[in-house]
């Protein structure tokens, strides 16, 4: 039964038209590029990236933080589906779980890209390695892996039941779903703690960091989900209910509003007193020592986020699914900048002892980042396609056998 599930799944996923293969092929090219630069990084070292001893977390870490948010953002589907029994959401909850799986896998790939010695990552894993309970990174790895497992279990058990036609065993499924919902919050909170528990980096060292992470995650994640849903509606036979998209739009709008509010609060608090601790934010907003490389990024992020928020508030935009992608893309891009480059890099500028340097991401870094995103979309396409196939009933246990029997 399991083997037939796998073979049916693979068979279904692999079948596709030119468009599908062109899409997967172009992603494949980027993935190959990623593998090459990964090889470079692990022979020549991180010197091929723009990271230095001053600014030692860059694009990779920024994307890692952002994608943890996207992974956590999947809970915006699962929670309404199971807590509020939202009919439209319930239908697509499994797609959210597929997105979460993808995002966590991408996070792990960014971890690999980020490490100086990815060959030694087993040092973190007992019994061969040592697990440190005092390290936030240790906790982060634990919650991320836990979240991955939970989502695989929930998502694929659900699909499995749909595939076989058996009823879902709610006795254990529902508790696991609830754990996964709370766990989603934990992954992003712990990622926020990862950087906010360092007094050495005053830009990050405040208790607002976790809630800022959650709000931006619950804006960027669903924004991406809306986009994916719209694409699915257009390209597959699977129909995502309007009600689901509308609820997601509401969630994006208000989480985005909160995120903007929190950012503004931080700006006021930091710049009113303008202590040395505000240097990072000041660098981000206006530049420091005449170095202003991130300033345009910050202001474009602000424009994108505020612009998206305003557009979301306009009913004609919000309700028109041809125009809805615009604010969604804006919100997604704005948060990617604000939370990625805009949050991580200025944490290192100036350094804890006041040295100001700038971050110049190298081609290798950009290619690696693109490659990992490509890999993410690659997996996501497969997972979503398979899931949709099962949801549509196109992959079903016994179908083939039944058809074969009928032919005889």
């Amino acid at each position: 039964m399991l083997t037939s599930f796998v073979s049916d799944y693979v068979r279904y996923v692999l079948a596709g038209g030119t468009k599908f293969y062109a899409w997967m092929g172009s992603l494949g090219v980027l993935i190959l590029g990623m593998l090459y630069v990964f090889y470079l990084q692990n022979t020549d070292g991180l010197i091929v990236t723009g990271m230095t001893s001053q600014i030692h977390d860059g694009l990779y870490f920024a994307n890692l933080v952002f994608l943890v948010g996207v992974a956590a953002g999947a809970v915006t589907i699962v929670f309404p589906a199971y807590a509020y029994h939202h009919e439209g959401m319930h239908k697509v909850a499994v797609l959210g779980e597929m997105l979460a799986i993808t995002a966590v896998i991408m996070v792990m790939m960014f971890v690999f890209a980020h490490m100086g010695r990815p060959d030694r990552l087993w040092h973190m894993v007992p019994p061969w390695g040592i697990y440190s309970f005092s390290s936030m990174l240790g906790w982060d790895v634990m919650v991320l892996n836990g979240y991955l497992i939970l989502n695989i279990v929930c998502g694929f058990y659900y699909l499995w039941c749909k595939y076989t036609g058996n009823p879902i065993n709610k006795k254990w499924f529902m508790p696991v779903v609830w754990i996964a919902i709370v766990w989603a919050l934990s992954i992003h909170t712990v990622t926020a703690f990862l950087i906010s528990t360092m007094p050495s980096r005053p830009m990050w060292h405040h208790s607002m960091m976790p809630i800022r992470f959650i709000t931006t995650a619950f804006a960027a994640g669903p924004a991406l989900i809306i986009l994916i849903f719209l694409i699915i509606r257009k390209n597959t036979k699977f129909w995502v209910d309007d009600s689901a998209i509308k609820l997601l739009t509401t969630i994006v709008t208000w989480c985005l509003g909160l995120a903007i509010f929190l950012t503004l609060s931080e700006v006021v608090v930091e710049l009113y007193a303008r202590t040395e601790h505000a240097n990072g934010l000041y660098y981000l907003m206006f530049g420091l020592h005449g170095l202003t490389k991130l300033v345009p990024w910050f202001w474009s992020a602000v424009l994108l986020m505020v612009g998206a928020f305003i557009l979301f508030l306009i009913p004609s935009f919000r309700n028109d699914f041809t125009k809805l992608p615009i604010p969604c893309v804006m919100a997604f891009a704005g948060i990617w900048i604000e939370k990625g480059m805009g949050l991580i890099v200025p944490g290192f500028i100036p350094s804890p002892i006041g040295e100001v340097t700038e971050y110049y991401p190298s081609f290798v870094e950009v290619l690696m980042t693109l490659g990992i995103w490509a890999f993410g979309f690659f997996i996501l396409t497969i997972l979503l396609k398979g899931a949709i196939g099962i949801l549509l009933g196109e992959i079903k246990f016994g179908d083939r056998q039944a058809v074969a029997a009928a032919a005889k």
Partner: protein
Amino acid sequence: MIHSKLSAAVSAKENTSERQLQPVSADPAQAVLKTTRRDFLKTGGMLSLSSLMGTAALMTQSDDAHAAVEWAEHFQKNYRLMTDQEKAESRARLEKRYSSEYGKQVTVDTTDAQPGVLMGYALNIRKCIGCRRCVHACVAENNQSRGTKRAGEKIEWIQVLRMERGKFDAGKMNQGYPEGLGIQVGGNAYTPAGQILEGQYHYNPEKVPEDDANYMPIACMQCEKPPCVKVCPVRTTYREPDGVVVIDYNWCIGCRMCMGACPYWARRLNVTNPVLPKEEMNPVTHYLGNRPRMRGVVEKCHWCLQRSRHGRYPACVEVCPVGARKFGNLLDPESEVSLILARKNVFRLKADLNTFPKFFYFYD
């Protein structure tokens, strides 16, 4: 106790046979003095074949053996969890690899913290003239990467900040902000003065000290409560019993959490395979100290463990031309640092962070 005897015996044994390199005071042979001949024989007999094998392998130095050594190095344990036997094996492996890589006999010391010693450091901030000799002495001693071709190939553990003394200017008396609305912010408000961490790192005048500058060297503070240790996910960086925060370079995964957590920017990342010319390589090394590092791991100041564990001053202390750097045992009331703490005005950098550095700044 047994352990220290063992390691002493290791030192003793290897000393008699192959170590003739070190100067008297940096020489692990000093440990011999603490071991009687009987101890030596006893523990020496117990001692694994590994160090012998290491010695033998050193002589052959075949490429295959070299590859095997590198391979075994990948699977060794965290240094703290190693048994004495494993330590000896690891040490033999490393000595063999380094010796063949650098074309000279390299020793990797594994001496433990000496009982009754808590190392401390003090720096006379008034004396420092900003000559950066400490920076370069550190590089000469500690086998840092020293390439010049690509940015990031050169690693220095000590940073010297040049800070403007600053002065208040009568010409700015009537300036201020906001203009025309009564002065709320004085015109001199933005004039740098005093010790703030907004220094210059790349100053290069013809002569130092300059009249208008103060200098402030910063390196690892060997905190009693080190934030870097707390954040390490694999516990590869830890505080040794004699107070020095060390790194097992072979266990480091290069996640750089410690670099983020350090409030003193004391840690550096080997962004590439270290550039260390054979002739400049210092062959007297310590496992937790100055042995050559590899790509992708973090390193930092360790108060020259390879010297200080044998009673010798760190390299930076010895070259400071103005005697601003002081080093000693904090548990010894007669030591330099203890006397400085007892007698001078002392401060710790960023004391508000509760890291409790054992590196003190003082002035007289």
